[in-house]
């Protein structure tokens, strides 16, 4: 998608969870053949509803769940790495989770939490830790008075800043953010979005920003991928995706987004949609979105659409561009 060499190249990524309650659920892949690139310094958004596979992609990249396909990070295949080599990659690829409190050890102080990555990777003598931690705290907008506090003594916004400080401590090239603002108060969300924006510019970080909050994705991301039932149905540069969405699902997402203006109403897709949401994903052909799609025709049931270029977008829909 970009001329600069890829930092991350994902090809035909699949994630399958075992032990579903029903045969259909056990056979359904959470991620069903996803391919994308992220260039150095690029910010890419990944949006989709719950169950679309967004978080499974993040976990697969972090090697937290078994996956097949190929993930090249800085020209090294991640999916076959083990032990020390995997640890080496983890320094360069870090993560910020949605629930900042759940992601932090409650028995450690802010100082210990932020210094931990340094200790783990033996980067610095203990004496230097505090100085580095203080510098990082200031960078994420926190004061030194927080150093001795425990996670439960912090506000939601402060906790997420500590999570970000930890993730940035080793100087990663790629930061994976899994719904990092969803659990925060509205007045704090934009603070954290601005901070991510600044950190990215300052450190030349690449971001994989996973969210269902479209306005924040629009603010932070150069390019956006839309996921539906484990497949990318559309990806496009920001202006194109928000200005001229091609896939009917992308259009439904944009239309449903509420606007703080009583004169405007979010557009609700037909409620029959919900029934299909609970139906097991079919193993056979056909477009997974067709049950909800206002444009579906016979071909959509017979044949799964391949992803294809359409202007500046990549879209997987038989009817897009008609």
């Amino acid at each position: 998608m970009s001329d600069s060499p890829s930092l991350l190249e994902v090809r035909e990524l699949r994630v399958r969870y075992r032990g579903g309650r029903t045969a259909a659920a056990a056979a359904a892949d959470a991620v069903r053949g996803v391919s994308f690139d992220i260039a150095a310094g690029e910010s890419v958004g990944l949006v989709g509803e719950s169950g679309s596979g967004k978080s499974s992609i993040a976990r697969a990249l972090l090697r937290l769940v078994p996956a097949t396909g190929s993930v090249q990070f800085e020209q090294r295949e991640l999916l076959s790495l083990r032990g020390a080599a995997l640890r080496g990659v983890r320094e360069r690829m870090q993560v910020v989770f949605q629930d900042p409190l759940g992601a932090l050890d409650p028995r450690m102080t802010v100082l210990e939490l932020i210094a931990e990555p340094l200790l783990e990777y033996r980067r610095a003598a203990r004496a230097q830790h505090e100085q580095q931690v203080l510098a990082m705290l200031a960078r994420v907008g926190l004061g030194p008075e927080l150093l001795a506090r425990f996670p439960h003594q912090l506000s939601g916004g402060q906790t997420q800043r500590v999570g970000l400080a930890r993730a940035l401590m080793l100087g990663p090239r790629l930061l994976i953010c899994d719904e990092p603002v969803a659990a925060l108060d509205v007045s704090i969300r934009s603070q954290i979005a601005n901070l991510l924006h600044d950190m990215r510019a300052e450190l030349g970080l690449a971001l994989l920003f996973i969210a269902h909050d479209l306005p924040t994705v629009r603010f932070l991301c150069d390019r956006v991928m839309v996921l539906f039932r484990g497949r990318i149905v559309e990806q496009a540069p920001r202006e194109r995706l928000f200005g001229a969405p091609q896939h009917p699902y992308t259009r439904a997402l944009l239309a449903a987004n509420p606007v703080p203006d009583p004169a405007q109403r979010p557009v609700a897709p037909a409620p029959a949609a919900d029934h299909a949401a609970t139906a097991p994903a079919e193993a056979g052909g056909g477009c997974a979105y067709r049950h909800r799609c206002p444009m579906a025709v016979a071909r959509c049931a017979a044949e799964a659409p391949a992803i294809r270029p359409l202007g500046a977008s990549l879209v997987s829909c038989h009817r897009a561009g008609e």
Partner: protein
Amino acid sequence: MAEPRETLLRLHALGVAYRRDGRELHAVDGVDLELRERECLGVVGESGSGKSQLLLALLGLSAPGARLSGSIRYRGEELVGAPAARLEAIRGRRIAIVFQDPLSALNPYLTIGTQLTEGARRQLRLGRRAAASRAAELLATVQIDAPTERLRCHPHELSGGMRQRVLIAMALMCEPEILLLDEPTTALDVTVQAQVLQLLRDLRERSGVASLFVTHDLGALASMADRVAVMYGGRLVELASAAALYAAPLHPYTAGLLRSLPRLDLPLPARLPSIPGQPPDLAELPAGCAFAPRCPLVHERCTRQPDLRVLPDGRANACHFTGSATQVDAAWIRA
């Protein structure tokens, strides 16, 4: 000719206090509010604003140890201090609640049918079959297909959006006059959220049920509320018609909150507007206005608690600054 609407609920000087670490905290502090027939009143706030405590107090469901003061009148009848049996009779029957998280509000071991009919059988003394047929009818009303079969499902067999609709149907079983909506769309995906909002609007049009919609999301509320009450640090800081509040917020907090909502319908800003600092800790509320530490218009006078003043146009605002919405907005832009 519009008939004057009767007041269903009247809150006067409502307070909810509890003790933590030996200190008295005021989760809700001196709130005056009315809910009228057929209206949807939005209550907006962030963590620590007191909006959820207010909602629980209305149902007599405050946590043990909470101390209620002031008055909650339902059609003139005082609910603060009312006997438990009386509250029980009103809960579900006259005033019903829809909780945020449908998975934890539903019992995983019981079928949807059992859970839907339980309250109605007790409150309305309906027989098993009558209750089941009413439940199926309501599932159809909330647009769940094959309602009779769904009655035999357990909660995990339904999607999140369906479970939320089941909770709405459950709240409607006894034909309440008032629906209390506790962040009913927060846990939902954006397309499902739009569907649930649409459903709530339809219900209101059809049955005229009044609702109190408690949320942190000014975006989701915009298409629902007739009037909006904004809470901060346990107090009511602004009250206005939705049209007036969204177009020209007067309280600096309301204005800041509206500005902080990232939007798809406006040009992309270089930075997202935000409110500095963090929502207040009830244990460390400043003397005077709780919003003062984050306010761009803060002034010496703000160490005194501002009263909620009712303005000539019927709006109410609790701020010492008496300038226009344009001036408040300008202060945020300068900040």
